[in-house]
């Protein structure tokens, strides 16, 4: 018994963090957004991610796929929240990390895509002197020359790259390593290590007739490179894009924007197998791109040396292949052709590794750079490391960033002469399943809608399609988070098997065996806090607004309070989603109120009310959120009853129980003026009565 306050905590990552290749503290920044602590939210993101504004726009967000909320209705809009937190004006106040003390080592980073940028950023922070070598005249890799501006505007990318380069990184553009400068030359120039983040920029060929000799056939990489320049390429009237990845979709959407009248995507499998992001496919269809699924090109037909039509064949799906996807099988006799005057080949890219292939080993077929393992990233050449698309083949931004970060750690150990750190992955990334009972009992809240340009306007140019969330929408979205693993922590040594938690949990999570041993599933718990407040022996605490945090909020607030007498502590439910203007109105209209924000009124205990009075408050009120925003209405009802008990106690204490008020959020304004005025009046009367 009585083992002090340590609770048996098994630290577990929430699904969102576990699924993120760079293990972003999603839950933390989502919570900070819910609390309207935007600057801290941004700092939390930036700490792990040197390209937050890029990721907020185009990350494939595996975190959302894993998100626990997704099992209830829809996942938290994590990427949109990241963009909200990183686009805001508060990012100016973010204090960028400073480069560490110089180690005197020089490192060459080849390629300035997300892998190279992330490696350069982290290496600079570790104190190494970094030079980026980039073959193209511009920095950013595929982010610059692949992803079109309507998804990732140039100025956004510029700003992010500047912040990184400002760490003191030297940049050499227009230098193709392997050509003018060999890898060995770099070592001769004093570089102690090299990171190869050269991406995958060589389009795979269609290998069909007409591909090489007809005018009007282009590879997606070179087409998009043109699209991303001020001088845009000319497109045909009817365009066929072959392939099913993001590159194909972006080529098609760009072709529409450049004036094509009809754009067809020709993909050999069905929509389910399409590797492009679901949202992107939807957006493209919405803008008018036509999809021909289960179709393979057979031949590009021409007239006068120019493309005139595409001959195709229909497929049906056969048995799954090595990649687990069902492979397409041509249906005999189903050939057809349609008129086009431009064909864009977007069937995948391979690294352009031929220039360095004499110095480091690459794979036979796909020309990917060979490394010894995912954490060390060492190539066959000592001192040379590689990561990103160059190693994995075309993948995603966040995977490239992750590789860059891992490489930085590995290079750092190499430069220190230590054996490379083998970081093990945090664990399984498969999200546990919630039981149907819990899903049913969970209050549903709709996911925020994104605001996009109307499709008609979109195709007229390259303006960014999707808008950033507004403050209120972002906060509301963040409040949907279920706070995975921030819930009830049970100290089995203290538990006396009284069964209260089993009886009060609105989701039925605590369970008992016949010997009274209580189990609380930390994954299923949603941190409502009811059990912790009702447990008579304090065997449970909650990580979100723990007992200590609650006490600290009250003590700190009271110690720093500038409120005029009588001071009234007002507990506000964050689910009320008060904006800064609400808070300003509160300050102006009710200067006596010291606001204490909590994740649910249900978290306020009699003890907290007493604490406020103990700290010198003259009155206390609890302001609940609107019922339709409350995830646990029954638990909130419990609070009201608890406060009735607190009032009796206050009466007995000689503090008029009427100095404690509970109210729901009025339709307008943050609290009822009458309520506060009444409270102040009563406090003053009570004060006079006492002094008489």
């Amino acid at each position, binding site marked *: *018994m*009585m083992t002090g306050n340590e609770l048996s905590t098994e630290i577990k990552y929430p699904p969102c963090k576990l699924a993120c290749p760079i293990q972003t503290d999603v839950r933390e920044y989502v919570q900070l957004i819910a609390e309207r602590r935007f600057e801290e939210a941004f700092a939390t993101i930036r700490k792990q991610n040197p390209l937050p504004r890029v990721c907020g726009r185009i990350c494939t967000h595996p975190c959302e796929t894993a998100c626990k909320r997704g099992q209830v209705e829809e996942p938290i809009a994590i990427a949109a929240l990241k963009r909200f937190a990183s686009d805001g004006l508060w990012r100016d106040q973010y204090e960028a990390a400073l480069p560490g003390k110089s180690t005197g080592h020089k490192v060459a980073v080849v390629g300035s895509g997300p892998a190279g940028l992330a490696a350069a950023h982290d290496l600079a922070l570790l104190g190494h002197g970094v030079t980026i070598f980039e073959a193209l005249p511009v920095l950013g890799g595929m982010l610059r020359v692949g992803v079109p501006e309507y998804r990732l505007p140039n100025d956004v990318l510029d700003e992010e790259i500047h912040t990184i380069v400002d760490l003191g990184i030297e940049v050499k553009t227009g230098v193709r390593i392997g050509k003018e400068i060999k890898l060995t030359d770099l070592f001769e120039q004093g570089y102690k290590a090299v990171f190869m983040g050269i991406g995958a920029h060589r389009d795979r060929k269609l290998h069909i007739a007409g591909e090489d000799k007809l005018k009007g056939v282009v590879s997606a990489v070179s087409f998009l490179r043109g699209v991303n320049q001020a001088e845009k390429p000319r497109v045909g009237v009817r365009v066929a894009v072959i392939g099913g990845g993001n590159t194909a979709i972006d080529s098609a959407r760009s072709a529409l924007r450049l004036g094509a009248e009809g754009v067809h995507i020709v993909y050999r499998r069905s929509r389910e197998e399409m590797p492009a992001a679901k949202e992107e496919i939807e957006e493209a269809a919405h803008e008018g791109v036509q999809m021909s699924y289960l179709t393979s090109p057979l031949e590009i037909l021409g007239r006068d040396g120019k493309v005139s039509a595409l001959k195709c064949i229909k497929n049906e799906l056969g048995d799954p292949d090595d990649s687990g996807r069902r492979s397409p099988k041509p249906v005999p006799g189903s050939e057809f052709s349609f008129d086009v005057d431009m064909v864009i080949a977007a069937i995948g890219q391979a690294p352009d590794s031929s220039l360095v292939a004499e110095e480091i080993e690459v794979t036979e077929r796909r020309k990917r750079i060979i490394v010894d393992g995912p954490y060390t990233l060492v190539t066959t050449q000592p001192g040379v490391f590689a990561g990103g698309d160059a190693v994995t083949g075309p993948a995603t931004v966040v995977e490239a960033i992750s590789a860059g970060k891992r490489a930085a750690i590995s290079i750092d150990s190499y430069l220190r002469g230590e054996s490379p750190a083998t970081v093990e992955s945090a664990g399984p990334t498969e999200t546990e399943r919630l039981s149907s009972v819990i899903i049913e009992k969970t209050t549903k809240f709709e996911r925020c809608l994104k605001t996009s340009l109307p499709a008609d306007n979109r195709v007229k140019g390259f303006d960014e399609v999707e808008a950033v969330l507004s403050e209120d929408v972002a906060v509301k979205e963040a409040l949907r988070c279920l706070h995975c693993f921030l819930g009830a922590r049970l100290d089995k040594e*203290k538990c*006396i098997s*009284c*069964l*209260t938690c089993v*009886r*009060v949990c609105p989701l039925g999570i605590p369970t008992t065996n016949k010997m009274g041993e209580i189990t609380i599933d930390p994954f299923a718990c949603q941190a409502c806090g009811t059990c912790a407040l009702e*447990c*008579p*022996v*304090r065997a449970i605490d909650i990580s979100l607004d723990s007992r200590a945090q609650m006490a600290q909020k009250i003590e700190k607030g009271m110690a720093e309070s500038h409120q005029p007498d009588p001071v009234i502590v007002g507990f506000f439910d964050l689910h009320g989603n008060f904006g800064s203007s609400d808070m300003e109105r509160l300050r102006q209209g009710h200067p006596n109120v010291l606001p204490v924000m909590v994740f649910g009124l249900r978290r306020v205990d*009699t*003890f907290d009310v*007493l*604490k406020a*009075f*103990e700290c010198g408050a003259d009155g206390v009120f609890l302001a609940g959120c609107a019922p339709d925003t409350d995830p646990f209405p029954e638990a909130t009802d419990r609070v009201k009853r608890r406060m009735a008990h607190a009032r009796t*106690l206050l009466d*007995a*204490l*000689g*503090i008029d129980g009427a100095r404690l008020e509970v109210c729901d959020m009025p339709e307008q304004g943050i609290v009822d003026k009458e309520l506060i005025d009444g409270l102040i009046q009563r406090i003053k009367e009570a004060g006079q009565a006492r002094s008489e």
Partner: protein
Amino acid sequence: MITLEQKKFQEIEKMTKGYNPLLVLGCETCAAMSFAGGQQQVAELASAIRIARKTSGQEGEVLEDAVARQCEPEFVDLIADKVGGCDAVLSIACGAGVQLFAERFQDKVILPGCNTTFLGVTEELGVWSERCAGCGNCILDKTAGLCPIARCSKQLLNGPCGGSMNGKCEISKEVDCVWQLIIDRLTRLNRLEMLEEIFPVKDWSPAGHGGPRKMVREDLKS
């Protein structure tokens, strides 16, 4: 379990007045399960006493602690040091706990913060009711598992009396007539004939009427 409830705060405040430091001592078994003496209630009560003292201009420190069971000497002895530094201890355990405490700490003022109510069951969270009177001679085998000593207002052994109306006891409409319940249950069990046997006069000596009770097990004792 033994159920208890905290005394009214005014009474507690009065009895603890002037003791400095005062230790509020919880009991983490029956008292906690009655939401009267667990650590949560210790924290709340101590905080209330502090505020009351502050508002009425009194001095005095209020300390908090709890033990697993105040009715066991080994547990109480574990906090001897803390007790030593206090003027008085407010025990929020049942009467048994308070008294054992008084025995273990001969020179210390001990004050009861709770009223011990009964031996009972939890009907649901926040609702308890009496079931056993501790009479020392259990007769539940003859009464369909329902105790007339604890639950009949008149402790009748050959009930019901004439005051039983529509299943309720004449003392209050809220109180079930336990004899009615016994008859109903025996009917369901098809054992109504059991009531034909008349209870002899009960020997109340094991119930404490023969003086304070004590139980000794020679085989266990040291």
